[in-house]
């Protein structure tokens, strides 16, 4: 969005209004309409995490690029984004997320931006630089199974979340399990996800009470792990990629949807309640 001239009313003039036609009414939106037949083709999902093991069977060869963010060498300098020589995951977390997304949207391309690791554990500035890079590249879906508790970076993350939103990108964030605020998972323009305990990747709930608006499979999830292995683990980190995968399917079927429409489609297609025969 680069408004050189402030012509905010221009899209709404009579001869241009036809271009504003959007979605059908919410009650007509079904899962069939939303993503039937879609496999994620044409959509790239960026994964900001600990890296993705490119040759892991669960990733299905869909990893198309890997970057890493290096912390700034000097206190005043900015972190640097570099292309990885090899697609590695330093702990397993990013590969787990990639595996979940690939299982749902098998034809989606995956891009890894490594911001977690022994050399930059939890550094908010590295995370912010990685997100900035993803926004420059305009990856339509970004999975963030991490967040920052740094109050100093509140403004920076708010700006990044707005830029992503205006660029038409959906940030899918894992809610933090810890008390207190964490960003960008609590911003209104993102999709914030916590874990539920129904063992089904296609069951997801919409919560009308923000900030955490969606719940997805996150208890004892079979996940890909480091060195080509797999384990079962629990956490909001593994719930978010389920929603990222489903968002990739919707985006693949409806390439022009904006982030708020994508969120509305997710809410409209959430698993209806009560859930018969399940806890």
């Amino acid at each position: 969005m680069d408004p050189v001239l402030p012509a905010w009313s221009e899209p709404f003039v009579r001869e241009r209004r036809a271009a504003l036609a959007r979605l059908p009414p919410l009650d007509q939106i079904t899962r069939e309409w939303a993503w039937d037949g879609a496999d994620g083709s044409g959509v790239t999902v960026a994964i900001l995490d600990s890296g993705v093991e490119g040759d892991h069977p669960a990733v299905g060869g869909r990893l198309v690029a890997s970057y890493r963010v290096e912390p700034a060498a000097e206190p005043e300098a900015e972190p640097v984004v570099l292309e990885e020589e090899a697609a590695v995951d330093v702990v397993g977390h990013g590969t787990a997320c990639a595996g979940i997304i690939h299982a749902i949207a098998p034809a989606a391309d995956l891009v890894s931006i490594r911001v977690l690791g022994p050399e930059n554990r939890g550094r908010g500035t590295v995370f912010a630089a990685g997100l900035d890079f993803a926004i420059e590249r305009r990856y339509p879906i970004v999975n963030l199974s991490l967040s920052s508790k740094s109050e100093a970076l509140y403004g920076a993350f708010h700006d990044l979340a707005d830029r992503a939103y205006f660029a038409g990108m959906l940030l899918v964030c894992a809610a933090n399990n810890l008390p207190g605020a964490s960003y960008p998972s609590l911003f209104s323009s993102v999709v914030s996800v916590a874990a539920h305990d129904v063992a089904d990747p296609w069951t997801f709930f919409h919560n009308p009470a923000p900030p955490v608006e969606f719940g997805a499979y996150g208890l004892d999830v079979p996940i890909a792990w480091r060195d080509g292995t797999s384990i079962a683990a629990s956490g909001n980190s593994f719930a978010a990629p389920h929603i990222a995968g489903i968002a990739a399917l919707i985006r693949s079927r409806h390439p022009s949807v904006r982030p708020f429409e994508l969120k509305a489609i997710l809410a409209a297609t959430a698993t209806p309640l009560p859930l018969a025969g399940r806890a």
Partner: protein
Amino acid sequence: MKDRGADRGRRGGRAGGADRLDRAGLELLRAIALRAETARRLVGESGEAVLRAIVDATVALFQAEAASIALHDPATDRLVFRVAAGAQGAGVVGLSVGSSEGLVGYVYTTGQSIAQSDVQRDARFGRSIAEQTRYTPRSLIAVPLVDEQRTIGVLEILDKRDSTSFSIRDIELAGIFAHQAAVAISASRIERDVGSLLGATVRSLVAQAEDAGGPLPDAAAVERLVASAAIGLGADDEFRLWELVEQVARVRSADPAQLDLVIDLLNVLALHAERRHPRRTRAGG
């Protein structure tokens, strides 16, 4: 102690101002530093007690076999288990793992909570710790301890007695306990920063004097500054504690045999006090 003020301050290059203070000024500063260190140790101990209380409560609430807290040691880049509770917990205290090693290292590195139900299936997770403690859990939760800036350690809970796995609610509850622990730890870090503050104050005094072209501050000037900063201290209900601190500081001049005697006496008194008032932690409080 490395002084962070020197890295940040515009006048970092002029460090070493303390060398130029007169002898009386230096003695005064040493006395202040000694009291700060004494206070730090007293409060630091209670900080550890808070951590112990947190793992005790964690074990009781989760009906777990063990709970422990590992903190990152920047000097060795390892996570050191500082406190533990529960039937299977004690063996882990003092052990350490690499900061990216095993499940604890994973949580420390990513800052993300995780729970695992079938730990034994994945032999790499915590194997070194399991071998050292001779206890391999079936299930566990690990949550990061996060202060305002970064991840400082990990709270780990092993094996719920009445269940084979932890629930989502358990993970969230563990996050609340971890938050309490992180708050307690950053409080004790503030005590440790007193030393750096002292150094920064001296450098600032020296630099101001140099800028003004005047003589370096003398002992009386430093004393006035410290006295004005200390107004009100000791006047509250902690007064008896400060009295104790003063006495402990005085005992420093005793010879080693006398010191041993004082330590033995205090041990006996402390045991006695704990038996009579198990919940009291304040001297004379």
